[in-house]
């Protein structure tokens, strides 16, 4: 099983994402100017500052040639994980509900956060138990998840919120403490914190590996 990790101009977390994926499967970095997904089984859209965050975070990357292929891949049911800037790109691409606004403090925040697993019966969280706390670092300036009321109600009713900041940990002002949200079909998921930075005991937590292992195991279950 192979993960494909996208690299745009300004992406900075693709190597960590690749190393994280390689702990559970194979992984290859894909360049934004190509259209070829090279037969990968799952896509990771990593963090960074694609296209300098010009206009709005994620707004330009969404129109790159590679993203067109990723959108087709997602529409055919392929699993796609967006992390931080990747989450922002997937929201801009219309693959995930809502949008990311500047943190309520307007400050860049970098800290370890506890995330509550809301559901474990998904392609992205099956290695967790519902109610588990995952300790994963977050580092961003524009991570306040927002959706208009009707859309938010729909997202909650469909059980699309997979991760929330633990009580008192919502540092960016996200609506309903949402840290990570899935599409309705269940094959695209985005979160602001960085699971690829929580894969080795050396850095304090290996909880991030559970998300990558979940994707691998959900694909194995389908074969």
């Amino acid at each position, binding site marked *: 099983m192979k993960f494909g990790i996208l690299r745009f101009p300004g992406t900075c977390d693709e190597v960590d994402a690749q190393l994280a994926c390689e702990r559970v499967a194979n992984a290859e970095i894909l360049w934004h100017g190509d259209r070829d997904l090279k037969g990968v089984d799952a896509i990771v859209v990593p963090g960074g500052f694609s296209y300098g965050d010009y206009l709005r975070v994620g707004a330009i990357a969404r129109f790159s040639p590679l993203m067109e292929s990723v959108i087709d891949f997602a529409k055919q049911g392929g699993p796609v994980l967006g992390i931080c800037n990747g989450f922002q790109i997937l929201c801009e691409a219309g693959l995930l509900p809502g949008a990311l606004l500047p943190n309520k403090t*307007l400050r860049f925040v970098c800290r370890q956060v506890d995330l509550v697993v809301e559901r474990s019966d998904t392609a992205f969280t099956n290695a967790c138990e519902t109610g588990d706390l995952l300790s994963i670092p977050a580092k961003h300036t524009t991570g306040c998840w*927002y959706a208009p009321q009707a*859309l938010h109600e729909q997202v909650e009713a469909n059980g699309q919120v997979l991760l929330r900041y633990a009580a008192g940990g919502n540092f960016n002002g996200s609506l309903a403490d949402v840290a990570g949200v899935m599409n309705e079909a269940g094959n695209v998921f985005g979160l602001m914190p960085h699971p690829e930075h929580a894969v080795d005991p050396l850095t304090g937590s290996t909880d991030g590996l559970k998300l990558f292992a979940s994707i691998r195991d959900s694909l194995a279950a389908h074969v």
Partner: protein
Amino acid sequence: MRVLVRPKAGILDPQGQAVERALPALGFEGVSQVHVGRLIELDVADPEQLPAMCEKLLVNPLIEDYEIVSIDAAGTPAGAAG
């Protein structure tokens, strides 16, 4: 042409709030309802296409409203006096 982009009413606008708090600190009183948006200026052969450009790229309609203003070569909005 000029496109004015604003945060939608009711959406958390921490930039606007920060500016609103900063002005009284400099002695400017009586300022409220501060919102910070974005100004995009562009020459467009076919202005009919501008709304589509806004909806597809220039604006995120979930969180932003926009207004298209026609300006002349000097940057004066069409119909403005003086």
